[in-house]
C-alpha cells in the first residue's frame, strides 16, 4: 500500500469530517436536543454563505471573520423564528406536521429571497490562503480545508463547554430531558429553548462561511446536505455534541478512504451503511442515551 496515498486519505477525511461537524452542529442542538425538525437549517447555512460573500466582496473581510461577525445577527433571527414557531405551533401541540410544513415553507422563502436578491449564479469568496496547501511529511493539507476544520473544532469545543459548564447550557440540556422538572426549578423552558434555537442558527453563519470557502454556492445548494446532516446527528446520538463531532469525522473518513481505494460513487453507500449497522447494534447512536 502506498503510504502517502493512505496518509493523505486519512488527512482529507479528518478535514472533511470537521467541515461536516460544523454544518451539523446547529441542527444537532435544534433537532437533537429541542426535538424541532428544522429542515430549513441548510437554507440558513446558505444564507450565511451569501452574507459572507457580500462582506468578503464588499469589504474584503476574511470569510471566517465575516462568519463570526454574522453569528449574533443569526442568533437574533433564530430567537425570532423560534418565537413564531412556538406561538403558532408548539404552544398548541401542533408542531409535528404543521411545524414541519412551517420549516419547509421557511426553506423556500429563504431560497427565493436569495434568488431575488442575488440571482442564481454561483458565488465564491476569495482569501489569500485559498488555493494553497502546507506539506507535512508525506501529507499535503489544503488551507481551504484546514481553516474550516480548525474553525469547526473551535466552534464545537465552545458549544460543548457552554452546554456542560454554564447554568444556561445545563438548562438547555435539561429542557430536552425534562421540561416539567426545569419549570419546577424556576426556569422558563420557552426562553431556554429560544436561546438554544438561536445558538443553533448562529452556528449556521459560521458553517455558511466554511461552505463557501470549500466550494461555490447557489441558493438551493443546501438541499444537497440535508441527508448527510441528519445522518451525522442520528449516528452521533441525538443531541450529543461530542457525538456529532465523532460521527462527522467517521463519515468524512469513510468517504475519503472509500473514495481513494474503492471509488467515489461508493462513498455515500458505505457511510450510510455504517449508519444502519450502528443503529442496528446501538439504536441510540454512538453517544446517545436511551
Amino acid at each position, binding site marked *: 500500500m*502506498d503510504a502517502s*496515498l493512505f496518509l*493523505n*486519505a486519512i488527512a*482529507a*477525511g479528518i*478535514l*472533511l469530517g470537521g*467541515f*461536516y461537524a460544523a454544518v451539523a452542529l446547529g441542527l444537532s442542538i435544534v433537532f437533537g436536543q429541542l426535538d424541532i425538525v428544522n429542515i430549513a437549517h441548510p437554507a440558513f447555512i446558505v444564507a450565511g454563505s451569501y452574507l459572507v460573500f457580500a462582506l468578503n466582496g464588499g469589504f474584503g473581510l476574511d470569510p471566517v471573520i465575516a462568519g463570526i461577525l454574522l453569528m449574533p445577527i443569526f442568533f437574533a433571527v433564530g430567537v425570532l423564528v423560534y418565537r413564531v414557531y412556538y*406561538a*403558532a*405551533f408548539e*404552544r*398548541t401541540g*401542533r408542531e409535528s406536521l*404543521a411545524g414541519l*410544513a*412551517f420549516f*419547509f*415553507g*421557511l426553506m*423556500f*422563502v429563504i431560497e*427565493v429571497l436569495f*434568488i431575488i436578491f*442575488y*440571482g*442564481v*449564479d*454561483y458565488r*465564491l469568496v*476569495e482569501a489569500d490562503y*485559498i*488555493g*494553497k*496547501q502546507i506539506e507535512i511529511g508525506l501529507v*499535503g493539507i*489544503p488551507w*481551504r*480545508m484546514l481553516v474550516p476544520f480548525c474553525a469547526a473544532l473551535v466552534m464545537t469545543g465552545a458549544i460543548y463547554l457552554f452546554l456542560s459548564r454554564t447554568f444556561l447550557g445545563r438548562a438547555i440540556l435539561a429542557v430536552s430531558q425534562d421540561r416539567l422538572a426545569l419549570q419546577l426549578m424556576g426556569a422558563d423552558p420557552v426562553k431556554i429553548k429560544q436561546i438554544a434555537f438561536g445558538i443553533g442558527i448562529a452556528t449556521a453563519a459560521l458553517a455558511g462561511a466554511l461552505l463557501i470557502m*470549500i*466550494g*461555490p454556492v*447557489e*441558493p*438551493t*445548494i443546501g438541499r*444537497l*446536505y440535508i441527508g*448527510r446532516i441528519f445522518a451525522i446527528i442520528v449516528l452521533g446520538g441525538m443531541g450529543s455534541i461530542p457525538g456529532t463531532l465523532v460521527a462527522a469525522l467517521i463519515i468524512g473518513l469513510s*468517504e*475519503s478512504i472509500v*473514495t*481513494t481505494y474503492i*471509488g*467515489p*460513487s461508493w*462513498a*455515500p453507500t458505505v457511510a450510510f451503511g455504517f449508519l444502519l449497522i450502528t443503529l442496528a447494534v446501538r439504536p441510540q447512536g454512538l453517544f446517545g442515551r436511551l
Partner: protein
Amino acid sequence: MRFFRQLVLAIAALAVVVAYSPQVSAQSGKPIKIGFSMALTGVLGAGGKSALIAMEIWRDDVNKKGGLLGRPVELVYYDDATTPAKVPAIYTKLLNVDKVDLVVSSYGTDVIAPAMPIVMRSGKVFLGLFGLDVNHKFKYDRYFQIMPAGPNPAQDWSRGFFDIAKEKGLKSVAIAGADAEFAQNAVKGARANAKQDGLNIVYDKSFPPSTADFTPILRAIQATNPDIIYFGSYPANSVGIVKAANELGLKAKLVGGGMVGLQFAAIMKNLGPGLNNLVNYDFWVPAKTLKFPGIDEFLKKYQAAAAGKGVDLLGHYLPPWAYAYMQVLGQSVEATKSLDDKKLAEYIHKTTFNTVVGPVKFGKNGEWATSRALMIQFRGVKANNLDQFKMEGTRVVLKPDTVKSGDIMFPYKQ
C-alpha cells in the same frame, strides 16, 4: 393565535405557490404560445436563467418585427428547478392546460430526457437546448438539438480532446464523471474514444454530484499516473476539481474535457490563473474564427439585460445557443407559414439555418450534421479580472481545425 398560525402557514403556502406559478409574458392579440420548462433554480439555474434572458431577447426582437405569421409571440414557462421529476408534469400542463402552440426544451440533458415521452405522444416538434445524446434511445424524428455535438454526440463531444491526445502520442487516461445523466453520457463517449484510440484506461470511476472535497479523488487518480485526465462534471464539481488540482499540483499532460461551469463568468473570474493550461469543451468564445453575423449585437443586448440580475455577465456559453434554437423555430414557422408539426419537422430536416452561432444543419437523428464542439485551452488568465475573457486570447480554440485559433501549450503540468 389561530389567526396568527394560519397567517404563517398562508405565507409559507404562498411562497410555494409563487415558486411554482407560471410566468406568462403579456402580449396583445392572438399570440403564438411557445411553452417550455426551464432550469431557473437548482444545479443548472445559473445557466437556465441566462438562457431565458436570451429567449426573451429573441421574443422581443421577433415581436418588434411584427411577430410570427403576423401574430405576437408569447413565452409560457415554468421553473423545473433542475429536477427531472418535475418535467413531465410541466409539459403535460403546457400541452393540455396552457394549450401552447410550440414547445422547446429546458436547459440540460437531465431535464430534457424526461420531457421526451410527453412531447413524443403529442407529436410536437421539440427543439433541445444542450441535451447530450438524448435522442439516442428515443429516436424521435421531430427532435432537434442545438448544441453542436455532432451526429454521434456522446463520442463527438470529446473527440477533439482525444484527437489532441493522439497528436501528442499520449498513452494512458483516467476518466472521472459525476453520477448524473449528462456527465455519464460524456464519460461514455470519452471511454469509447479512449478505446478507439487504443489508450490504456487506468482509472474509470463515477463520483456523487454532491461531493464536497475532490482531493481524495485526485490523489487516487494521481496514484495511477495517467497521461490524460478526462472529467465529466457539473459547475460545483468543476470548481472543486480545479481548486484541488492546483493545491496538490496535479501532474498529467492533458487535463479537462467535459467540465461544465468553466464557461461561466463568475467561476472563470474566481478561479483565475488556476484555469491556465486546462483543455475543456466550449461552444463559443471570442475568436476571429467564430465571428458570425449577429453574434456581437446579440451579446451586447444580452450583457445589458443580464446586468444586475445575478446571472452570467458575459453570456458566451449558453445564451447564443438559446437565441439560436429560437431562431431555428422562428425561421421554420415563417418559411412554412404554418404551426403544423409535420411541416415544421420536414423543413428543419432539410434546411441550413443562419443563426447567431453560424450556419446550423441538423442530421437524421436531430443532432448537428457535423460536430463543431470546441476544445479550448485557458491561457495567460490573470486573477480577478472578468474583462480579460471578453477578448480573444484567454481561451484559445484548439479543435476543430476548421475554427482553430491557436496551438496548444503542452503539457498541462509536469
